[in-house]
């Protein structure tokens, strides 16, 4: 019976590992990148593929989720995080091959539905209870930035909801279920015409920096380093700038 149990518990693993073929080590890399980089990194990946012939596959998710996956031994060549805290954690766990470098930055902006029903003009407007404000929870990067900005501007926010992802904030504003939200400039750019973007001076003081690194688990460190250099280089930076990211 014991042997049967051992076999039974090993079988699914055997089936699963049969699906994950080893792949070609020379011309493919796996990049773990923060969810906010989805559009720009997809474009960067396509350019990089055209230029080098290396196949780039992405895993886009919240930075903390990606860090947890890396910690559990997920194989990846490059990690790009949306905040330095998460990268520090990955570095402390001994998972990085090279010292992380900042390649982009992001600041917060106010977004409202396109007709701005509550006539929001600046950050102080978001303090009142009569305006439905949605922000990120302090546990996620955009929420940390929100707390800092509010403190710097000496505004007491009274959010109706603290979402666990910046995309959820944007979603509630887009759907007209919130009068205002605080999101990153790049998220506002991605939403385009659906939302109105209202910049406020205090946002300049809180800059969220994006670090990138090659990983210890990389089967292909040279190509991984090449990809990082591409992101930091002229072409990569141009794409990031178009998406609304600030200079590193």
């Amino acid at each position, binding site marked *: 019976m014991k042997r049967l*149990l051992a076999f039974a518990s090993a*079988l*699914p693993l055997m089936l699963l590992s049969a699906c994950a073929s080893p792949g070609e080590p020379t011309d493919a890399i796996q990049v773990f990148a923060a969810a906010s980089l989805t559009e720009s990194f997809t474009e960067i990946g396509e350019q990089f593929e055209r230029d080098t012939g290396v196949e780039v596959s992405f895993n886009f998710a919240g930075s*903390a989720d990606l860090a947890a996956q890396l910690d559990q031994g997920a194989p990846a060549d490059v990690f790009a995080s949306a905040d330095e805290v998460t990268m520090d954690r990955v570095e402390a766990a001994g998972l990085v091959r090279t010292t992380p470098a900042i390649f982009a930055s992001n600041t917060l902006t106010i977004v409202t539905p396109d007709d701005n029903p509550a006539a929001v003009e600046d950050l102080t407007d978001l303090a009142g209870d009569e305006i*439905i404000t949605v922000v990120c*929870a302090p546990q996620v990067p955009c929420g940390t930035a929100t707390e800092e900005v509010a403190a710097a501007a000496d505004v007491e926010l009274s959010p*109706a*909801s603290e979402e*666990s992802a910046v995309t959820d904030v944007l979603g509630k504003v887009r759907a*007209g279920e919130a009068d205002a939200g605080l999101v990153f400039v790049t998220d506002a750019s991605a939403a385009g015409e659906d939302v109105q973007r209202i910049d406020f001076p205090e946002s300049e003081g809180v800059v969220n920096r994006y670090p990138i690194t090659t990983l210890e688990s990389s089967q292909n460190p040279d190509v991984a380093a090449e990809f990082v250099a591409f992101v930091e280089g002229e072409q990569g930076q141009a794409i990031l700038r178009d998406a609304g990211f600030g200079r590193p």
Partner: protein
Amino acid sequence: MTLASPVMPRPKNGRHASSSPRWLLIPASIGIALIVVPILAIVLRVSWDEFPALVTSPSSVSALMLSLRTAGASTVLCVVLGVPMALVLSRLRFRGHGVLRSLVLLPMVMPPVVGGVALLYTFGRQGLLGESMSALGIHIAYSTTAVVLAQTFVAMPFLVITVENALHALDPHVIEAAVMDGAGPTAVLRTIMLPLIMPGLISGAILAFARALGEFGATIAFAGSLEGVTRTLPLEIYLQRETDPDAAVALSLLLIAAAVLVVGLAGARRPAV
């Protein structure tokens, strides 16, 4: 010992072990491993030294209390609305009966997040009913009421289906006899049907409570997430995972314990159908 249970003789209906081929043990034990191993994995992850501190932190306690309150309220709503639904579905025959029954069960198979989006387009500010409700000064989105509505939406089918099964198992002669004795429909319901289906009703309510307690997708899409107002335990776990995986694991264990309790209670009370 769990291995043997799928083919254990069940004397009640006279089936014997020999009627199930032995090779079924292999897929059956893979299936069991698929459920048991992940639960074991999370139990092994718990840092027991910190466990008491993690589950008694203010945000954890607030999420737990909110979860218990909202799941309790939605269970009451499920019973108040679901028992009549089950009665209508099981006692009355009318055109569109099958369609209605399928519709009632829909939230059970629908992705909860889709339910949340649907609720948002119903009760949200721009929603079907929300617009006129806002005019009356009723705001549901971002309130604890929204959490209860989301939980009721997903949990209702569990109550309806359990009560309906209990009603089908009723002996029609008992009811006929009561009617012959001159009992009115309400009296029959109160004095005969409800007491007879009580075990089914209770296990249905327990299942609905459990489903409400675990509700995540519809809540996050419809109610938002604010400590003490809409951030229930599953939402707190999802958020804690970002910064404090140990706390997320500890709280997960709490929900697993609740689930074990529910399965035990509902199983023990399952009526012999």
